[in-house]
C-alpha cells in the first residue's frame, strides 16, 4: 500500500548554550494507513524529537536541519504555518504521555473536546455537543452526557487519557501520534488504553506512530518497528520479523535485558554495560560501539549505513 506519511532522512537539532545537539540524525520511515508503527528508544534516542518535528511543534531551541516529511505527497517542512494549522490536529493528531498536564484544569472536558472540534470545523453548539458525546462514547467513557461537565481533576489518569484520545480523534485524523501514552499509567489501565488505541486504529483505518520504550508493547500492539539509539535508526522491520530475528546488537541487548515472567531462576540479567552517550558529544562511528559486545576497531571509524539485510529488514551495523 502507498505510504501516507514518509519521513526521509530527517535531521533535527537543538541549539543550546553548550552547542548543537543532534537529536534526530537521518531518520527515515514510512507509515501506511491502517498500520501501527512502534518508534522505540531510550531517553535521548530522539523518538520524541522525531514526532515533534513531524507535528512542527519543536520548542524554540529546536530546528529541523534536513530531510523531508511527506504527508499525502506534500512536504510538511515546506508548508506555511497557517496551512500547517489545518493539518495539525485535523489530519495528524497527537496524544502525550501526561494527560493531566495536557488538559486545561479550568475547563470541563466537554468544552475542551468541543474546542478541538470547532477549531477545525464549523459546527453549531448543538452539533458540537452531539459530536463530543459521540467521541467520548467511542473511547469507552460511560455515561458521556453526564461526564462532559466534569473537570480533568475529577477523572482518573486512565480516563484522562481516554479524553485525550477522544479529542485527538474528534476531527477524524488520518494519522495519530501517541507519545508514550501509557507510561504514566498502571499496568492494568495501560492494557485498557492500548487495546483501545489498537481497536480504534483498526476500525478507523488510522496510521499510528506509537512512541514507547517498551518492546513488550511493540511486540503485542505494533505492526512495524523502528529502533532508535542516540538519534540514529539502528534497526527497522516488521514486528514479526524483528522479534523472530533481531540483528542489531543493540536490539538484542535490549531484548535480553528484559526480565521474563516465567518465574524460572536465572543467575543474572544480561545488562548492556555503560551508559547512554551524551547527545552533545556522541561517540564517533557507530553510536553504540562503546557498549557493543561485538564491536571491532572499524566500528569507531564510520557511521554504519542502514542496509536491507533481509527482505524489508533494515539494520545499521557492519558486523551483521
Amino acid at each position, binding site marked *: 500500500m502507498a505510504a501516507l506519511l514518509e519521513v526521509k532522512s530527517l535531521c533535527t537539532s537543538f541549539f543550546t548554550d553548550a552547542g548543537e545537539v543532534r537529536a534526530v540524525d537521518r531518520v527515515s520511515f514510512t507509515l501506511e494507513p491502517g498500520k501501527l508503527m512502534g518508534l522505540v528508544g*531510550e*531517553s535521548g534516542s530522539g523518538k520524541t524529537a522525531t514526532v515533534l518535528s513531524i507535528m512542527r511543534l519543536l520548542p524554540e531551541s529546536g530546528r529541523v536541519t534536513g530531510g523531508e516529511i511527506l504527508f499525502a505527497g506534500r512536504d510538511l517542512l515546506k508548508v506555511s504555518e497557517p496551512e500547517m494549522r489545518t493539518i495539525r490536529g485535523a489530519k495528524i493528531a497527537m496524544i502525550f504521555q501526561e494527560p493531566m498536564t495536557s488538559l486545561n484544569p479550568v475547563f470541563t472536558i466537554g468544552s475542551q473536546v468541543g474546542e478541538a472540534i470547532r477549531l477545525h470545523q464549523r459546527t453549531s453548539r448543538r452539533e458540537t455537543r452531539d459530536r463530543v458525546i459521540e467521541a467520548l462514547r467511542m473511547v469507552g467513557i460511560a455515561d458521556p452526557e453526564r461526564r462532559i461537565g466534569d473537570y480533568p481533576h475529577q477523572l*482518573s489518569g*486512565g*480516563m484522562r487519557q481516554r479524553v485525550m484520545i477522544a479529542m485527538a480523534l474528534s476531527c477524524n485524523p488520518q494519522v495519530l501520534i501517541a507519545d508514550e501514552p501509557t507510561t504514566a499509567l*498502571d*499496568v*492494568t*489501565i*495501560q*492494557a*485498557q488504553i*492500548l*487495546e483501545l488505541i489498537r481497536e480504534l486504529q483498526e476500525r478507523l483505518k488510522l496510521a499510528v506512530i506509537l512512541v514507547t*520504550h*517498551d*518492546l*513488550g*508493547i511493540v*511486540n*503485542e*500492539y505494533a505492526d512495524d518497528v523502528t529502533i532508535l539509539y542516540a538519534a540514529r535508526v539502528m534497526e527497522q522491520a516488521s514486528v514479526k520479523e524483528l*522479534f*523472530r530475528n533481531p540483528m542489531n546488537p543493540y536490539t538484542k*541487548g*535490549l*531484548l535480553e*535485558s*528484559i*526480565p*521474563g*515472567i*516465567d*518465574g*524460572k*531462576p*536465572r543467575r*543474572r*540479567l*544480561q*545488562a*548492556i*554495560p555503560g*551508559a*547512554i552517550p551524551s547527545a552533545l558529544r556522541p561517540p564517533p562511528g557507530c553510536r553504540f560501539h562503546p*557498549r557493543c559486545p561485538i564491536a571491532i576497531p572499524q566500528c569507531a571509524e564510520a557511521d554504519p549505513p542502514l542496509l536491507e539485510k533481509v527482505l524489508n529488514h533494515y539494520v545499521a551495523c557492519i558486523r551483521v
Partner: protein
Amino acid sequence: MSLVSGSDQASAPIAESATAAALIRVENLWKEFPAGSEGLLSRTRLTVKAVAGVSLDIQRGETLGLVGESGSGKSTLGRLILRLIEPTRGSVWFDGRDLSTLSRAGLRALRREMQLVFQDPYSSLNPRMKVRAIVGEGLEIHQLARGPEKEARIVQLLEMVGMGADAMNRYPHEFSGGQRQRIGIARALAVNPRFVVLDEPVSALDVSIQAQIINLLQDLQEKLNLTYLFIAHDLRVVEHISRRVAIMYLGKIVEIAPREEIYANPRHPYTRALLSAIPTIDQKVKSERIKLPGEMPSPVNPPSGCSFHPRCPYAEERCKITEPKLEGARGTHKVACHVFPAQ
C-alpha cells in the same frame, strides 16, 4: 576495613528472637490518613485506609517483592516498616524488637540498620551536596567514621556500587540516572544496614540500565547478607530478584507466595490480571488476557466484602459480603480469595 565489621554488635542475636528466622515481622498493620470531611459542615471525618491490616514476615537474607498499582498502599507499607511514619495500629518487629516500644534513642540506633532507596534518583539526592557529603552524611550522623577513615569508607562504598573515587568531588547533576541510583545505593549502605527497602529503584531508569542496577543489588545482597523489601508496580521487575512476592490491592495483601509459585501458579484473579496485562516480548501468542474493567476504587470508601469484587470477572455473591482472609492451605502460598483459595 571490612564492610560488615561495623554491624557486628548490632547483629548479635537478641534473646527472644534467637529462634525466629524472620528479620521483619509485621502484624495486623493499619495506616489511615485523614481525607477531609464528607461535606463542608459535616462532622463525619473521612479517612484513607492506605494500609488495612497487613501481616507478613521477611526472612533474613531474602528479597520480598511487593507489587501493587498506584494507590495500593505499597509505599506506605514500606515506610511503616521503616517507621518513617507511625501506624494507626498494629506492630512491626525488627529482629525480635517491637519498634513501637523503642525509645527515641533506641529507634535512632535502629534506623542505622534499616535503610531506604528511593525511586527517583533525580529528586532524592541533594543537588547542592557533593557525592562525598551525600554518601558520608550517614557515617557522620551515626558517628561511624571520621577523617581519613571516613574518606576511605566513602571510596570503598563508591567502588562497591561500581563507581570510581573521582565521583566524590562531583555533584549529582553530573551523573546519569543509573549512576545517581548507584550513589543512592551507596548512601543507603554507608551505615551497614541489615535491611533495605527498595522503593521502585529502577522504575525511573532506561531499560538497558535497569538490568545493571538489578544485578548490582543482587550482588550486594549476597556480599553483605542484606534483606530486601523490593517495591514495584510491575511484576516483571521483581521476578528476577525476589525469593517471594506479595501482591497488594487497596491496602491489603491479596496473595503472597514463593516466586516460582506466583508466576507459574497464580491464584488470585488480580494477580492473574496483573500478570496477563504485562506486554511480553514472547513470540508465542498470549492464550488469554484477563481484561479488568474499571479502575482501582477509592481507598476512602473501599467496596464491601472483597475489595476487588467490583472488577473481578469471577465475583460471586459472597464476595460482596464477606472479606476473604489471606490463607494458605499448606505452607507458603497464601491467597485472599473465596473463589480461588490456596491449593
